[in-house]
């Protein structure tokens, strides 16, 4: 099993590497197109700002590369948002696997709801291959100020200010708004599920 973690200018790529190590999976952090194309699994992680990250991906031709991948791909947090059509963060056109716009949380109707949405929250998901029943009942770690609305690709929802997509799935593309690599044993199970899809 060859697992590649996409290396780009967003933080936390190494957190994913460490998390995979803890579940006994060796992965390579790389931006080499040949390696990424030949990998059995590709993880597209990230913590960062959408326009900066997207600019980097474009400059290095990685946006087109990601689009062309046919093996299971997992986008995490900003990785998930960049797989969407457009992000309000920096008014950024994104990769467009998921035909949904990423919006900024608006707490004007509920000013006591803090932004970013930061911390451990519950989700609602029909048990599936990525998110099994036990994981769906657990807490997951979120940290984000932008969200993908619930759409046809939504496989898990979370409710904070408004219901939003906690996870998306379309064809070989999977994505989570939460950080499985930072979500304790529940997150490690979800990563394992992705590896064994």
């Amino acid at each position, binding site marked *: 099993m060859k697992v590649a973690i996409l290396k780009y200018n967003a933080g936390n790529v190494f957190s994913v590497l460490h998390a995979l190590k803890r579940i006994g999976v060796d992965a390579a952090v790389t931006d080499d197109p040949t390696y990424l194309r030949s990998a059995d699994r590709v993880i597209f992680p990230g913590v960062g700002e959408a326009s900066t990250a997207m600019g980097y991906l474009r400059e290095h031709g990685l946006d087109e590369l990601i689009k062309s991948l046919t093996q299971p791909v997992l986008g995490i947090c900003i990785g998930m948002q960049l797989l969407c059509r457009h992000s309000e963060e920096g008014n950024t056109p994104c990769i467009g696997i998921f035909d949904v716009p990423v919006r900024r949380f608006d707490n004007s109707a509920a000013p006591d709801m803090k932004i970013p949405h930061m911390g451990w929250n519950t989700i609602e998901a029909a048990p599936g291959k990525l998110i099994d029943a036990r994981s769906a009942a657990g807490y997951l770690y979120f*940290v984000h100020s932008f969200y993908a609305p619930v759409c046809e690709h939504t496989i898990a929802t979370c409710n904070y200010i408004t219901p939003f997509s906690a996870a998306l799935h379309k064809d070989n593309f999977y994505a989570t708004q939460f950080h499985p690599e930072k979500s304790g044993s529940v997150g490690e199970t979800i990563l394992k599920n992705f590896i064994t899809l």
Partner: protein
Amino acid sequence: MLARRIIPCLDVKDGTTVKGVNFVNFKNAGDPVALGKRYCDEGADELVFLDITASHEKRGTFIDMVRRVAENVSIPFTVGGGISSVHDVGRLLEAGADKVSVNSAALRRPELIDEIARHFGNQVCVLAIDAHCINGKWTCYLNGGRIPTGRSLFEWAREGQERGAGEILFTSMDHDGVKQGFACDALCELSSQIHIPLIASGGCGAREHFLDAFALGHADAALAASVFHFNEVEIPALKQYLHHAGIPVRL
């Protein structure tokens, strides 16, 4: 529902966890990596590692320890102490830290917050504020509570938020180490003035104090050190207690 967070803080000096009484006398509380992993396994929601003497002694940050923590814990952790540039932040994130906290360097040069937020996103930047209440006025202090700045806690927290901080970590120097509870009135006031998450710090001596920080102080998270290091409060029992008191926690 979003859970309130319990955050053990590991103050680190020369690779060892320490906790001072009012930041001066230190008691050894063990190896930071082993301790961090233990807290993670016990149900801590996040960890903070502060190199508490870094800015005073002009020491750099502790990349190797950060890397070992990242390898061993599966929950988010923040690293602070001596961070004064985007370059410092990049190295820490690359070593596996999720967030960084800035304190003295940001007070000296507030643009640091803007720079971190722009490069790495708001959520990476935790603005730590040490404050004393003097004649009823909360004032910010530099270098682990050693140097007064004359700046108001509330005004600085709001400015930090506007500049792009993702969270405020407020330590009451008056309460820190005294174990009589958090500065709940100041927390409540601060929470009402900002729209980013607020972490309560300083003064925790018993599980009731956590409840007060959430119920009275409206904090989003509560941080403590010695009560955890010396087993005076155990995290699983604390969470059960909070749960039964109606506070949403991750069980």
